[in-house]
Each structure stands twice: as C-alpha cells, then as structure tokens.
C-alpha cells in the first residue's frame, strides 16, 4: 500500500467525518486526488462502512449485550459459512466470529433486557439444527470497543514550554 493511501485510511479510521479538504492538508495531496483515492477504496471494498461509536448508556438507552459461544455440528457439504449466514441474518446478532478453542463460533447479541436476550438465544439460536450447545455470557460493562476507550482519555501532563 502506498504512503498516501495508508494515511487516508488511518485518518478516516480515526475520524470518519474528516473532510477531503482536511485530509488534503494532512497528506499534502490535492483535494481531487483525495476524493479519487477514497472513491477507489470504497469501490474496492477496502472502506466497508462509515460508522459512529455511540455510548447508548450515556444516551439513556439501555441495551443488554451478551456474548454467546456456540458448539456446532457440521453436516456434509455444509461448512461454517452456512451456519454463520443463518446467524448473521438476525438483526439482534451484532457480530459473528469463527473462533478456536473449546467453542466454534462466538456471537454478540443485543437486546433490551436480559430476558429478551435469553429468550432470543433459547428460541432462535439454541434451536438451530447445527447448534449443539450454547454458553451465554452477559456483558456487565464495556470499557473498550474497536480500539475506543469509553472512559475519559488519559491526559498528558506536560510543561507548556520546553526546549
């Protein structure tokens, strides 16, 4: 990857609302070229989506999250892709990952209450043919998400002037 593309991706990863003009200032590229590079990155599906991290708890909207680990039974001609597709189509399911270790798949489910999440898992997930067993862990507090720390950032303590 060339230096400018790398810069643009890092700038947008940090702030999806960075304007082309601002990116141009930071990279030394003309605005038109910045726009071209971003369009290509979108077209090539390197930039998949522009997203906002929201602290729903701060917004007064309480969501309950749970991480559910699944053991699955694979059938002939049906790999993990098939079960993954069935899982990610539920809007309640926020993430689906194939994992190593005691379980095969880890999903994150969001609901309005523990009861709602528990019922969703019992009715929609545990009942899937390929799902052999589930292990549900409710999230009590999220400290860091996608590299973003929800607590106040550490403040650097520096002298205002130094040589």
């Amino acid at each position: 990857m060339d230096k400018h593309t790398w810069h643009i991706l890092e700038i947008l990863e940090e702030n999806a609302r960075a304007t082309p003009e601002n990116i141009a200032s930071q990279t030394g590229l003309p605005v038109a070229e910045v726009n071209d590079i971003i369009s290509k990155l979108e077209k090539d599906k390197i930039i998949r989506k522009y997203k906002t991290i929201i602290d729903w708890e701060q917004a007064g909207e309480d969501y309950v999250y749970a991480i559910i680990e699944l053991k699955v039974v694979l059938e002939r001609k049906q790999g993990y892709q098939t079960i993954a597709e069935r899982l990610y189509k539920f809007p309640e399911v926020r993430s689906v990952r194939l994992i190593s270790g005691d379980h095969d798949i880890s999903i994150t489910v969001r609901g309005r209450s523990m009861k709602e999440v528990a019922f969703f898992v019992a009715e929609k997930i545990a009942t899937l043919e390929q799902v052999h067993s589930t292990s549900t862990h409710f999230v009590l507090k999220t400290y860091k998400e996608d590299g973003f720390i929800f607590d106040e950032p550490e403040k650097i303590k520096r002298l205002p002037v130094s040589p």
Partner: protein
Amino acid sequence: MRTQCDPSCFVADHLKKVPPSGIRRFFDIVCEADDVISLGVGEPDYITPWHIRESCIHSIEQGETSYTSNYGLLELREQISELFSKKYNVEYNPESEVLVTTGVSEALDLAIRAIVNPGDEVIVVQPSYVAYVPSVIFAGGVPVTISTKMSNNFKITPEELKNVINENTKAVVLNYPNNPTGATMDKADLEAIADVVVDNDLMVISDEVYDCLTYEGEHTCFSSLEGMRNRTILLNGFSKSYAMTGFRIAYALGDSEIISSMMLIHQYTMLCAPIVAQLGAMEALRNGNDELDKMIREYDRRRNLIVDGLNRIGLECFEPKGAFYAFPSIQSTGMTSSEFAENLLDDQKVVTIPGDVFGEAGQGFLRCSYATSKDEIQEALERIETFVNKT
C-alpha cells in the same frame, strides 16, 4: 556578630558567561496565562506507550531497584548495538562502546567534557538546541557558532565549516534532524562535511535523537559514513522516539577510548542511569516498533497540516523533513521573533518559541511544535491568522 556574605560572590566566574535560557523566560509568561494553546513544547504529546509503562511497573514489583553497571545494563547495550548494526550498518562493541546515560543532555555534557581542554573551540551549528553552547562553556571550551540559512534549507555547508576552523578547533556539534528547524542532511551533504572533518582532524558530536522522526528520505547516521566511526560521538535516546522524556534515558556510542573517558565522569557524577528507565528502554526496543511507526505517520500528517496552514497565512515556512517542529519566517510582519511570540501570546493565547532562543540565526523565525493534537494545531492556526491579519 559574624559578617554577612554575598552568596553571589561564590558563583563560579564561567557561569556568568551563560545567559539564562530564553525558553525559561517564556515559560514564566505562559504559566500566568489561561486558555492557552501551546506550540511551544519540545516533547511528544503521547504518553509513553502502555506496554513500556507496564513493563516498568512489573520491574518495580519484581524488585528491580538496584544500581546497574556504570555503562548500563549489558542486555540494553547489546540491543542498542544490534539496532545500529541492523539499521545503519555501523558496529559498536556493547561491552565498551555503548554508554547508557540519563538523557541525551547528560550524554552531551559527558561528550564535551571528555574531549574539551580549556580554550578548545567547539563549533556549534545554529539554530540549534539550547544546551550546546552552555555545555561547551561549562567544560571550559569556547563555543564558535555557524548560522545556517533558510535559503539553504538550514543545512551547514563545507565552506561555512571551513571558515571557522582554526588551530584551536576541536570538535563540531551536529544535530540533524534539527531542533528547532526540522532540517535534515542527506548522505551527500554529510559526506562533504566528513571530508572537512578529516582534513582538519576534528571530532564530531552528532546528536541524532530525532533520527526516527524523518519523514522524507532516509536518515543518515553520521558515524556510518566511511572513516567517521572513530571520529564521532553519537548521541541518541528514547525521549522522542518512544515518548519517554520523563524517564531520562539515552545513550552515547563511540570508540572505546572516548566512551571509557565519558564513563569516567559518568561513574562519579551519575553512577548509572535509573534501572527502571533502562528496563523500559529494553521493552521499547523489543516491542515498540508498531507504536513508533504509528506515531511517525501521525506526526507526518500534522507536519503537512501546520506547514500548509502557516504558508497559507503568509508566514513563509521551510518544509521540515524531520523532528516535530515547523520554523516559519515572521520577517514579513516587521517584528522580531520575541515581539511576535510575546504579542501572539498576549493577543491570541498561542505559545510559540522565538527563533532567536536557538541562536542569532533564528532571529526572524518562530519554532512551532506540532507535537500537539490536530484539533489544537487547527485552532492555533486560526488564531495566528487572526493575529497576523491585525498586524
């Protein structure tokens, strides 16, 4: 009743030749102001990466609180030696040619004291870091300054160097990438300097603490030039590259004769660098490269942002290729550096450092550090623009 004394009578004469730091004077003004944006800070705005801090905490828990060898922990010296071998293809024996010091400031003091006899002249290329001239004076030497120019990208030329050499000249202090200008010297530039150094049998003290923060071209380590290894005392450290300023940890590299002489002073004045900082430095060299690369890319973006902004405002700004400083000219405003910086602070609450703090060659310029967040740089640029438009 005993006779009262005047303590100032006891202060050594040679200290009276050293004026107080111009930065210190500015510091006192800044501390009294509110809502200030500071572009006056010569250290990273990153907190030391967590893995380094965590390893230091762990080392304290494990009771690693003793003195170390005067030279520093051998394992750290081996890491430093390996780094220079791999990165610059220059070899230093970790047993005798690497000295771990309490910051580059100590390494600089040791280097000068190790080679300077009373009356020896040491050439200091300016604008440059504020400690070089006083360190020469403290050692009983005579500082001789060379003023580099923006028209020559703040590089020193062989002719400028030749013009100030005489029979008393002992050494030359180089600092590229440079604080405060951000200038760099490429290999060909340095080769020409090396020729003059050899012709006149000089030593070079090369402060390369910003070597990792080179954004265009590759940094050339002075001692890696042919024939220069034994003529160079190379100074480097962890403050800028790994955001470890407060740890005070750095090193000097050179021929064993020179390094052992520096160690002689170090062992009686400092004994050793703090062990926790040494262990932190080892962790930085082992696992710090990803964080370092990320910091470099971010500084590069800020560099573009501030240089673009200053030029847009009409303050002609030389394109810095290293360190984290922009050095715009404010000559178009008709003010001196101090007038501009003080009025800017008073009017718009933006701190910059007058260029002449770094030597007379810096008159007419400002040092603007971009080791601050992009939001603050943007805000500072807007305020500077407002100030310039008023004047």
